[in-house]
């Protein structure tokens, strides 16, 4: 080898320099993913992540999960999965999995492992003590839209009928409470009328406040397919202050200033009326006009028209700013009204608003006005973020004001009905709704709640302005139980951490966005001593009954005593819920027994009052005679649609006259930017799961702040620079991504990061919708400034 002395010196200098620079810390070790050839058995189930409800198959090799795949022909996903859905088997045997109950008396002590017997004893003793000393209002349950229906149902049964507390809440309050409010006030019945099937029949898509390309990628693919099949006929309108991957297929992108959505929607209604594009017949047959106020007054079409007079496209365009012109509002309204079937999609952009219910009402108004409801390809369709927010929480009674089966808790008749069905004395369930989420954690702050059970969610990271609420959770006089599979920001504040079984390690039903219930049966054993929640609640309730000497608590779980927790126990709970509680309600699930759900690979869409109907897949479209058996049952005349929803006794749809209202906190000279938060395709919520999948973490190791290039140039911010995002509540320091995504004067941060510096919910605002009590995550005011040049950051995941 020819090498001069000089070369050698140079080389040695180079080598030492390389050593001094340090060793590469960013190398992610990728374990060889199994290929389909390695699998010896495929087991059916539903995806663990978003609300789409994709059917998946888990591949096992020698009894261990090694792969996931979609199945072509599935009704929800047509065989497609996103990367999250394809990789979640990787966390099932993750070394971080919690395997033993952990306890500490004080929150500044380290955890020590204890037995289940001790753990349940402590949990029961603490809850019993709180009830005895401070009354039933001092205990609370905070659940999740990711719990199985059986879990939410039995938890709320024990809390309400057993402990006499309506403090039953869940994280769906943070994501779809406004949609519930919207559906109930406009249509009188919760949950969408149509289904995904309408996508293939629709001719116009109106997507507002949703980045479905990232948050619901599989549904977005169906929508894109439809657009590509008929590129000329099918129109896509996307209304969003941020240019997102969803906007890329849109024929028209309406970029409005955050918080002006209500004006935009009203203005579209204005154009539809002005140009006489409305469906007079539909309005006359099925609708009423309501003016909000105390009391609510009935008004007529002319009043509606007069109230819309403020929202001329010209005036609205100047209010909305962005790229909105009077002409494109008109054009969007025309596309919406004249298509052969218009489907609206929205998600957190509409729901997480201080007037989220109003925004929902205004979307429904457009559909009622144009008769774009109930016919094929037409629907006002709210997308849901979690796999069981609809099935478990909305239907299963997982919020403070509702009992299972869509029953408001304050209505005596319905409450007594539930008490009778459960066989507990009347008056056992309190009439007053409990604390809603923000109020619940405010009560924790104030020390009014002494014992709280947090199940399958991480409010320490997911609540808006979370620092404020973490202080309360850290109080020594608040006893916190957390049931989890991994350490999270919330387990850091817990007294008792109980390890639970993950998806496919327990049996239960998930109900997705389109009213579809799908069963996942236990396939693999949970690691260590992790247990299914249904078992935990049953055993805990039995101990509570003993400690409080209250036979009614025992009565709540009596039908389930002695059953095998892997299958028979959830089955018995499901049977009680469907056969007794949903009977005669609009979400009648009597036909969807475990036997039927095991046969039906794609599950069943409610209403499914009979087995025969459930075996046909249930009801694809509510309220339509000939399709929905309940519509036939409730029909009083021969009109094709029957709106029998439980909230509107007159079986009508209501137009609501809702005015424009801006955000709770608008930018000013001190905080000149809008801050909005959102999601990215490869991560899920707090990253406690996806953050532990190296393939996903490598691509998106930490959150960043998206800044419009014009703003970045003005502020001297370059790509990768560290930027401080400051609001009235605190600050975060994140790397910058300069990108024509957010409009000028707006920055965007995704919330999947556990690191204290980058946890964006530390700065978001906790103002909430007075109707739905859903916080306004999507808008607050902030200022941004450059802190330093690029820095090498490390991904961060909470460890125990």
């Amino acid at each position, binding site marked *: *080898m*020819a*090498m001069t002395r000089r*070369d*050698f010196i*140079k*080389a*040695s*200098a*180079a*080598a*030492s*320099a*390389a*050593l001094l*620079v*340090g060793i*590469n*810390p*960013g*190398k992610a070790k*990728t*374990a*060889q*993913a199994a290929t389909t050839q390695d699998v010896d058995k495929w087991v059916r189930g539903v995806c663990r992540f978003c609300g789409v409800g994709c059917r998946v198959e888990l591949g096992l090799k020698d009894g261990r999960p090694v792969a996931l*795949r*979609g199945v072509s022909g599935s009704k929800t996903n047509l065989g*497609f*999965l*996103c*990367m999250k*859905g*394809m*990789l979640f088997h990787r966390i099932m045997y993750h070394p971080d999995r919690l395997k033993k109950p952990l306890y500490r008396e004080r929150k500044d002590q380290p955890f020590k492992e204890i037995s289940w017997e001790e753990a349940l004893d402590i949990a029961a003793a603490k809850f019993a003590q709180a009830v005895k000393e401070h009354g039933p209002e001092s205990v609370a349950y905070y659940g999740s839209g990711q719990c199985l229906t059986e879990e939410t149902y039995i938890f709320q049964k024990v809390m309400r009928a057993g402990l006499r507390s309506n403090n039953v809440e869940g994280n769906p309050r943070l994501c779809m409470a406004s949609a519930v409010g919207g559906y109930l006030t406009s249509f009188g019945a919760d949950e969408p009328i149509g289904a995904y099937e309408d996508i293939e029949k629709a001719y116009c898509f109106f997507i507002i406040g949703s980045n479905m390309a990232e948050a619901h*990628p*599989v549904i977005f*693919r169906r929508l*894109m397919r439809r657009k*590509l099949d008929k590129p000329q006929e099918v129109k896509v309108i996307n209304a969003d202050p941020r240019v997102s*991957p969803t906007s*890329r297929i849109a024929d028209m992108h309406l970029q409005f200033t955050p918080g002006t959505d209500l004006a935009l929607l009203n203005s579209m209604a204005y154009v539809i009326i002005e140009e006489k594009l409305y469906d007079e017949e539909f309005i006359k047959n099925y609708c009423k006009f309501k003016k909000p106020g105390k009391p609510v007054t009935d008004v007529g079409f002319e009043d509606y028209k007069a109230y819309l007079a403020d929202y001329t496209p010209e005036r609205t365009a100047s209010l909305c700013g962005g790229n909105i012109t009077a002409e494109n509002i008109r054009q969007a309204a025309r596309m919406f009204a004249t298509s052969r079937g218009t489907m609206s999609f929205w998600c957190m952009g509409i729901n997480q608003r201080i007037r989220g219910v109003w925004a929902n009402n205004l979307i429904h108004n457009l559909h009622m006005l144009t008769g774009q409801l109930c016919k094929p390809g037409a629907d006002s369709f709210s997308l849901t973020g979690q796999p069981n927010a609809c099935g478990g929480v909305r239907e299963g009674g997982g919020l403070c004001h509702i009992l299972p089966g869509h029953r408001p808790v304050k209505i005596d008749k319905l409450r007594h009905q539930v008490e009778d069905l459960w066989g507990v004395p009347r008056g056992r369930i309190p009439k007053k709704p409990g604390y809603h989420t923000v109020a619940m954690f405010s009560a924790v702050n104030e020390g009014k709640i002494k014992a709280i059970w947090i199940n399958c969610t991480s409010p320490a990271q997911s609540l808006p302005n979370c620092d404020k609420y973490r202080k309360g959770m850290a109080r020594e006089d608040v006893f916190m139980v957390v049931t989890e599979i991994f350490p999270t920001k919330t387990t850091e504040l817990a007294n008792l951490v109980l390890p639970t079984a993950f998806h496919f390690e327990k049996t239960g039903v998930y109900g997705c966005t389109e009213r579809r219930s799908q069963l996942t049966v236990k396939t693999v054993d949970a690691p260590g001593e992790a247990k299914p929640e249904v078992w935990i609640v049953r055993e805990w309730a039995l101990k509570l009954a003993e400690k409080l000497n209250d036979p009614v608590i025992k009565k709540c779980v009596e039908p389930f005593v002695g059953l095998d927790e892997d299958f028979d126990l959830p089955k018995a709970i499901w049977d009680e819920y469907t056969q007794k509680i949903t009977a005669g309600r609009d979400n009648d699930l009597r036909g969807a027994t475990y036997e039927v759900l095991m046969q039906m690979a794609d599950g069943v869409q409610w209403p499914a009052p009979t087995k025969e109907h459930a075996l046909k897949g249930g009801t694809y479209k509510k309220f339509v005679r000939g399709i929905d058996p309940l519509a036939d049952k409730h029909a009083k005349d021969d009109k094709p649609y029957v709106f029998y929803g439980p909230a509107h006794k007159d079986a009508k749809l209501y137009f609501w006259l809702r005015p424009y209202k801006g955000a709770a906190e608008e930018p000013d000279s001190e905080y000149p930017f809008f801050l909005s938060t959102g999601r*990215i*395709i*490869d991560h899920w919520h707090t990253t406690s799961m996806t953050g532990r999948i190296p*393939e*996903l973490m*490598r*691509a*998106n190791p930490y959150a960043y702040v998206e800044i419009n290039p014009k703003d970045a140039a003005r502020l001297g911010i*370059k*790509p*990768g620079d560290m930027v401080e995002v400051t609001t009235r509540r605190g600050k975060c320091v994140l790397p910058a991504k300069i*990108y024509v995504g957010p409009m000028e004067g707006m920055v965007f941060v995704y919330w999947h990061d556990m690191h204290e510096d980058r946890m964006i919910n530390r700065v978001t605002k906790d103002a909430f919708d007075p109707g739905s009590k859903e916080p306004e995550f999507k808008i607050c005011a902030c200022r941004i400034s450059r802190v330093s*040049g*690029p*820095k*090498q950051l490390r991904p961060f995941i909470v460890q125990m």
Partner: protein
Amino acid sequence: MLKKILFSLAAGAVEAGRASSSDAQSSPIKTNVLRPPGAVKEDLFAAKCIRCGRCVEACPYNSIKMLDIRAGFFAGTPVIYPQDIPCYLCMKCVEVCPTGTLQKVKQSEVRMGLAVIDHTLCITWKLQALCRTCYNVCPYKETAIKLDQLRPVVVEDKCVGCGLCVHGCPLPTKAIRIEPIYSF
């Protein structure tokens, strides 16, 4: 420390001794082994670069590595292995290069290489899943990489070759790679 350096050098020398002389003389630049932004033609690189290591020091992400003695003639010159740490295009290295081996180019004019998607490996192209990671992480989304029916497509004259896509690709056998194009 010194002992360690000497030991590694000795090990390197042994390895280099084993390697054939043609290896030590031919450029180390190949698939997924790239020069930093703004590099002159590879024919000139080793002659112009004085192996000062400033680019390595300036790189805030530790993306730039110095070749050791095993690279023979090319020892001491900087390279980027995008599979380990890609280039985040902060353009700090071009500013500190004293010889102009890394020329002061604009971020969008960088051509470290070209991303190539292997359609037989990419699960999105194979219609098995909806993955868009390469698209998501690209600093020139919609310019350098586009989605055609949700499948990623590289725009050849816009791709800067930073390798973020290679780094991000979640597959065990990467479905996207960077081929060097030997200038800028």
